């Protein structure tokens, strides 16, 4: 904790989330020691691999002050393309799914910026169109494959708790985090989200920011769908129907504001982990699906309410503590 206090990188809001995550882990570990068993942490990271990847892309659009409602449908389409195009070779399927996602991201960004339409409206349209496309691709069936090998390889435990699937998600967080923190484009995206008029006047690349966030949002969703379909050796048009809301929750729990401009991939990582830990832990202690959904709602509301109050208080305490240390 002392190290955390000394760090100037950490805000009250982040500390609040770290404390919440640690409290959740400690509570579940005490309640049921199986929670911290390697195999359960592996199960937890498998859930995170899916949710985190979708939340990462979606949160970028939120940081840019926009919204991509189509991520859930994109997960289904990504999975279906992977199995349909990749019938002979799944790698071809993954490439095709990513290429298609880039195209969808470009179209979304183009329509939003060229015709000045709200991203909410545009992405409702693309969500419905993608959903229709998914049902057409699936032809009313579940598409499955007997090729379990790649899925098994992706899901095989690595260092006990990880798998290649969760490593890919963690790597995506790292890459996007570095991009947002160290590049001018990353700064532009944040500025566009917080002060769009100022951003345009000061020369921030508004159009390009939109293209990047919507392409990344679609691509991460499609990649999540691709990896999931290989893992399940099947894909259906209804996959991902609840993922969009979970991903929004993860982003908000992580501290990404709906109004745009705030939040980082590291925050989204924390938000995704908080939700995954909570869901895994509650399931382990025997809570039903409805109870878990209820708990999710409470945490989401609690975090939003606390952010204003406790986050500010913690920031103040941190500032005071820093002042004392530097004095």
């Amino acid at each position: 904790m002392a190290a955390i206090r000394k760090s100037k990188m950490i805000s009250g809001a982040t500390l609040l989330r770290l404390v919440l995550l640690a409290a959740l882990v400690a509570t579940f570990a005490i309640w049921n020691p199986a929670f911290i068993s390697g195999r359960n942490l592996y199960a937890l990271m498998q859930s995170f691999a899916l949710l985190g990847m979708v939340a990462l892309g979606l949160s970028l659009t939120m940081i840019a002050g926009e919204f991509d409602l189509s991520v859930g449908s994109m997960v289904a389409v990504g999975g279906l393309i992977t199995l349909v195009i990749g019938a002979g070779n799944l790698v071809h399927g993954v490439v095709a799914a990513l290429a298609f996602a880039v195209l969808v991201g470009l179209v979304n960004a183009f329509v939003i910026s060229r015709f000045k339409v709200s991203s909410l409206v545009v992405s409702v349209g693309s969500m419905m169109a993608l959903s229709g496309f998914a049902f057409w691709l699936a032809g009313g069936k579940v598409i499955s494959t007997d090729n379990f090998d790649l899925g098994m390889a992706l899901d095989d435990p690595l260092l006990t708790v990880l798998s290649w699937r969760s490593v890919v998600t963690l790597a995506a967080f790292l890459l996007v985090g570095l991009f947002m923190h160290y590049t001018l484009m990353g700064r532009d995206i944040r500025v566009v989200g917080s002060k769009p008029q100022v951003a345009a006047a000061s020369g921030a690349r508004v159009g390009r920011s939109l293209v990047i966030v919507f392409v990344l949002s679609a691509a991460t969703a499609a990649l999540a769908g691709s990896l999931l379909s290989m893992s399940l050796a099947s894909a259906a048009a209804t996959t991902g129907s609840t993922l969009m809301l979970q991903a929004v929750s993860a982003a908000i729990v992580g501290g990404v504001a709906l109004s745009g401009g705030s939040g980082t991939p590291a925050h989204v990582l924390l938000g995704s982990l908080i939700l995954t830990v909570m869901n895994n832990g509650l399931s382990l202690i025997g809570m039903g699906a409805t109870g878990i959904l209820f708990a999710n709602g409470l945490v989401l509301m609690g975090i939003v309410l606390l952010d204003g109050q406790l986050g500010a208080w913690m920031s103040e305490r941190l500032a005071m503590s820093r002042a004392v240390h530097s004095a």
Partner: protein
Amino acid sequence: MNFAKLTKLLLATTVVGGLMAPGMAFAAAKGAKVILLTVTEECEYCALHQRAFKEVAAAAGIDLEVKINNYDAAEQASQVDQAIAQKPDAIVLWPADASAIVPSLRKIKQAGIPLVITNSRPDEKYSQFWDVFTGPSDIGNGESAGEAMIKGFSDKKLGSDGKVFIVEGVPGTPPQIQRSQGFEDVLGKKASGIQVAGKQNGNWDQTKATDAAAALFTQLGSSVKGVYAQADNMMSGVIVAAKRAGIDPASLVLVGSNCSIEGVNQIKDGTQYATVLQSPIDDGKYAAQAVADLLDGKKVEKQIFLPHEIITKANVADCNAALGR
């Protein structure tokens, strides 16, 4: 739930419990940790299945944990990972999706945990991954419908020849294919004079079934002596179409399926001849009994199908009892 329903449900579950309790030793099942991974508790069938399962598991002394995924295949995959981590003595699993569950079944097999699949059987070619399947058989369901059709011809004195048609579910789904297959097999073997003269898809939907039946009544006219609708709600559509075509439904042998409330009412008022019962209580009970037997080291059949009782006006009360109404 009103008092009468509650009483019936209690009676039904008491009968289940009563059948299980006496003379059965659950040496190894007693105290064993079993995880039931099921789909939802928000459909009547699923809720009754789960309740019956719990009753029998409790009677066997099983330490049961239930995980529900709301028909989310990805969520179920992660629940399987978690269940394996808990090292239970056995897992009972209702697949959210019979294809997407296969890699998870493989993981359970690799972990060496005994597995009972309930209700929805994945493709037979993966059967090495599970120990027992218990649940409905759509072929058996169709066979019972065929038997009911033959009995109806005899009861209504329609002779041993005549044309019938089938209103099917969503094309390509296992119940649509297998129910028709069972139905036609039985007619072929036992009553070759009764011919299936037409088939149309009703997509499990009453309106669609009305259109499908109307087309078949127009095509086949008054030569139709019977109709098999693969679900009772579709039979309601068939009855509407028959009336519009000027045919008295009570003069036909109308055989439905599922014992749904429409079917029960139509059987009571004499417009529908029969339906085929698939009991959710039996479904849950069979799965729990199979896992208890498995844990006790008893020899258990690889596949245990539910009985598909034929329901007519004479025994329509069985429908309500079986569904806890």
